């Protein structure tokens, strides 16, 4: 781009780098602090001496967290809901987006179906009626209460629908001439062409499932059924350890600042693991959202 070397420009460049470094630090330092606390021994962390580097380095907090049975349980529940939930989300996105991507001539009644989905996106029964319905269906304390109520991701369906509509019409027409059915067109032509879009939606759905905590808190009555984030909340936010039904010795350990910190870190490790992929698809996800913008 344009090179300019007057004093204002130079001053601004330096200022710009400094400001951005400061802001980035501000953003990441809380995480670094928590990591430092998680590797510190109990006394310095409880006394509030740890800043950005561990004091009395120890791995003990992590072995405690990972060794706890309650943690295992909730970790597995979260893993199960993330895999199962994302698979169901994606299947529904594809199955609904495909018919809706057709024109009204190709798919009679499209407008009505479109409105059924659109209206459900703009208006909802709200927390209480939804909760009562889930309870009435007997889904309380079942993993399905975490998966089914949000299984139809309407916004993602519309993104996928737009993506399908932007695929070149000629390919589909050629397949039609060869006598391909809608199933074949969807599975052999549309899906292979939309893998990047699908990957984006899958990542976002998976992160959503992993991070969800509220449904676990209201639909699960037994702490043994809590997904990881809900379990974490009872430890680091709610401080209602009595609900977890752990024995008093473990209780003292769980309220230990260092153990809490390592609990937080363990919970975000899966996110950090997929973060490189998230980044790659992040921008494309935003682009996907602004197709037809």
């Amino acid at each position, binding site marked *: 781009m344009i090179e300019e070397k007057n004093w204002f420009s130079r001053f601004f460049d330096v200022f710009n780098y400094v400001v951005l470094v400061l802001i980035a630090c501000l953003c990441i330092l809380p995480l670094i602090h928590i990591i430092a606390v998680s590797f510190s021994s109990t006394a310095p962390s409880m006394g509030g001496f740890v800043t950005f580097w561990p004091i009395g380095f120890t791995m003990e907090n992590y072995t405690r967290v990972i060794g706890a049975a309650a943690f295992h349980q909730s970790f597995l529940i979260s893993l199960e809901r993330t895999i199962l939930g994302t698979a169901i989300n994606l299947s529904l996105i594809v199955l609904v987006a495909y018919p809706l991507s057709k024109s009204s001539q190709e798919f009679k009644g499209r407008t009505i179906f479109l409105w059924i989905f659109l209206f*459900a996106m703009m208006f*909802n029964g*709200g927390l209480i009626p939804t909760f009562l319905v889930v309870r009435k269906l007997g889904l309380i304390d079942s993993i399905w209460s975490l998966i089914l109520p949000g299984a139809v991701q309407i916004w993602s369906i519309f993104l996928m629908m737009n993506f399908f509509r932007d695929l070149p019409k000629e390919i589909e027409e050629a397949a039609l001439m060869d006598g391909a059915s809608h199933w074949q067109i969807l599975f052999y032509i549309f899906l292979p062409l939309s893998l990047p879009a699908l990957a984006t939606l899958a990542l976002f759905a998976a992160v959503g499932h992993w991070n969800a*905590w509220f449904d676990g808190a209201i639909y699960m009555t037994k702490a043994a059924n809590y997904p990881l984030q809900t379990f974490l*909340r009872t430890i680091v*936010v709610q401080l209602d350890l009595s609900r977890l039904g752990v024995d008093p010795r473990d209780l003292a350990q769980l309220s230990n600042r260092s153990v809490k910190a390592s609990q937080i870190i363990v919970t975000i490790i899966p996110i950090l693991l997929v973060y490189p992929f998230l980044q790659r698809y992040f921008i494309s996800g935003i682009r996907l959202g602004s197709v037809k913008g």
Partner: protein
Amino acid sequence: MTTPADITHRIHTSSRQRVLGYLARSWPLYFMLIPGIILLLIFNYYPMYGIRIAFQDYNPGLGFERSPWVGLKNFRFLMLLPQFKELLRNTLVLAVSKIVVLQFTAIILALLLNEIRVRVFKRIVNQILYLPYFLSWVVLAGILLDMMSSNGLIGRFLNSLGIPSFIFLGNAKFFPYTIVVSHVWKDVGFSTIIYLAALTGIDPTLYEAAAVDGADRLQRLRHITLPGIAPTIVLIGCLGLGGILDAGFDQVLNLYNPAVYATGDILDTYVYRAGLISARYSLAAAVGLFKSGIGFILINVAYWMASKFASYRVF
């Protein structure tokens, strides 16, 4: 000889054949929608039907169908509730200040990042900025609660500067700032990316032409960059209107406590406490309906404005 009856017969068969031919080819389109529609009916439309409990005295034993009707009693109770005005005010104050501060910060950050020539630096800053976006409010609140506790990092930092610290999260005056700042912390990376995308859409030849004409950096900012992202700002502003009653349930529920209800309690958290903690289902449903009803109107106005002023369409 063809009689009129024959012709009608033939028309009927041919239209029936057409329908059959259409179905033979297109039935998968309907079939594919079945699971989605069924789930939508159960988990979206059935709860909408359940909104009727806002006008009932809901009794779990009697269900949606047979609970006694009480007309507008729940709404009248709500209007007389001393907290109601406070809930509404807190919701609006938090939601509006969150949108304004976040967008303002994101625009500034995008403009600063856009001036950076070193690609690697830009990318690293970006990656750091949007990391919190992918963490849950439980995690972020857990970190904040630790840092804002009595001997937490923030208090110690203020003390080292000679500023007395206080119990941040127990202070109702301070609470809205906590909410706005932590919201910016979580979401600023995401919003910045949107503006950065808008900035890359600006034709670079405009800048070159302006430089040739002797425009300095500030003039280029004012006359090229800002007009270039103005449509995005308008769009985000319009769409933001639709969320003006969404003050951030996840965030507030994880950060607030009874000491800050005066400024921190919002419609959503009240619905949660009234309905699921105190089991006053009908009252909570009435608050929920009040919120989703106004929200529905606002979203439609927002989409209408977005399509009118920023030619935005969902599809």
